[in-house]
């Protein structure tokens, strides 16, 4: 048995290359079918708290789908069938008793392209805050400024907080989206190729943000940029054709890939 393979319940091998008790997300025998296609195949993996975990894998292997299972955005696609479960702490994600609204609030989401809400810049941040609780005008102002500063956007937008968010550049929009996600005070941030639509400068800005955030947040980031993963990942989950092939600390993963598919992928065979 490999050092990072742990015997899970019912004899399943759970990928957990770190000590027990440090995980915040546990994917437990997750299978996902859309119609007749088997998209996620028996996924067993744990994600450590306050680390940056990158999900790597060739296009179409199920990275986005796995990410969306974590906050159950799969609900939006009626013809999807899920078995197994994901636990956020002790909370099951799939289950009729789950308070999914509360659970989703613990998880920020950053998508491939920025999707600002159809509101002004200020309200893009305030929207989530207002869902979180009651604030006075002054408190809202303060918090909006705080989160815009967190993503280094405040100085660029402080004079036009009331103008539509879509007027910002793509890079600014993505930082706004990050600030919006942070404003609901999540424990986890899910990001799906968050820099793929950005120019190199904006991309680097987001990347730096992520590296900094991983002290206080659990980050799960899908990417297809190997070098990016190398730069910022603490752990890497490698997926191939709907399966998790291996999960390793980043350094080990890149320097000493274990599985045959991983080696091929790192050598650029799937591109």
């Amino acid at each position, binding site marked *: 048995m490999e050092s990072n393979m742990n015997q899970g319940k019912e004899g399943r091998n759970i990928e957990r290359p770190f000590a027990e008790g440090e995980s915040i997300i546990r994917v437990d025998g997750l299978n996902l079918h859309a119609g007749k296609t088997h998209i996620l195949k028996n996924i067993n993996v744990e994600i450590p708290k306050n680390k940056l975990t990158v999900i790597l894998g060739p296009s179409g292997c199920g990275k986005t789908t796995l990410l969306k299972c974590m906050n159950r955005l799969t609900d939006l696609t009626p013809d999807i069938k899920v078995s197994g479960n994901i636990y956020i702490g002790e909370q099951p994600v799939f289950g009729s008793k789950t308070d999914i609204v509360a659970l989703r609030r613990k998880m920020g989401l950053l998508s491939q392209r920025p999707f600002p809400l*159809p509101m002004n810049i200020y309200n893009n941040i305030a929207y*989530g805050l207002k*869902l979180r609780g009651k604030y006075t005008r002054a408190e809202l102002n303060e918090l909006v400024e705080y989160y815009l500063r967190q993503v280094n956007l405040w100085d660029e937008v402080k004079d036009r907080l009331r103008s*539509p968010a879509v007027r910002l550049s793509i890079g600014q929009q993505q930082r706004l989206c990050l600030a919006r996600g942070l404003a609901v005070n999540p424990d986890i941030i899910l990001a799906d190729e968050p820099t793929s639509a950005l120019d190199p400068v904006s991309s680097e800005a987001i990347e730096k943000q992520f590296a900094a955030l991983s002290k206080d947040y659990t980050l799960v980031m899908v990417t297809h940029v190997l070098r990016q993963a190398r730069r910022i990942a603490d752990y890497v989950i490698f997926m191939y054709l709907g399966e998790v092939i291996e999960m390793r600390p980043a350094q080990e993963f890149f320097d000493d890939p274990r599985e045959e598919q991983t080696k091929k992928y790192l050598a650029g065979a799937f591109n």
Partner: protein
Amino acid sequence: MNISSHRRTRDRVVTVLTYAAMVFVLLLPFALFVGLAVKSDLLFREHSLGDLLFSSVWRPSSGEFGFKPFIVGSVYVTLLAMLISCPICLLSAIHITQYAPTRVAKVVTTAIDILAGIPSVVYGVWGMVGVVPFVGKIAGWCGIQSNGYSILAGGIVLSIMVVPFILNILMEIYRTIPRELTEVSLSLGATRWETIRDVLNRKALPGILAAFGFGFARAFGETMAVLMVVGNVVKIPEGLFDPGYPLPALIANSFGELGSIPEIESALMFAALILLVVVLIFNATLRWLIIKAERY
């Protein structure tokens, strides 16, 4: 002539042709307007615009042309139809695109397409045998004397007729909103309904305005079905159960007199002109609202 100059010529011909077609299309409403205005001229020689629009006396035989009853009738019937159909369309578009399973949505979409293809005279007949007696009964319960041919009957039939058109546009609008916007809002801790109310509807607003405007223009000009159930009495309607006489019905009912008395012909042209101008002004206002709403 070598091949490349041949191709260049063809390119130029196509450019000119498409340009000409565009100019033609742009000129159409203008030509329509000028034609109607010229033909209405006779009426303006003896009546002021104010008299024509605001007088309630309609006695063509003695040269009195007050269009107010028709204008008011048209506005009432159209507003009533919009009041009934817009909320229904908005709610069902939201349900079909946001909540209903794919299979149900497909069935409903097919049904709506069928409804949209039914000729208006069919709606009219159905209105006469179904809606009119029903309205008459309601009037009875309310202690009002009415045979059912009324503004209310016209509004109901009209509202049903515009539903497929408005609903089709609205569904398209909601379907084109990127799913990621819903995902983002849900991930911030909003419920499904909060997401629809605060995010999707805001995003859809320009489209919703366009759909309602399209419905209004259609309803305002709809002739046959309304004419069959609205009663066609020249009188300013004072209640829902009163009969009315909308502008399109006036034109349709009197076109037989075209060419007989010049003044009446001119009056009908003026009625058509009013219809055209109202729809044009309405469209322009709507454009402006849509552009304002599209900022986000």
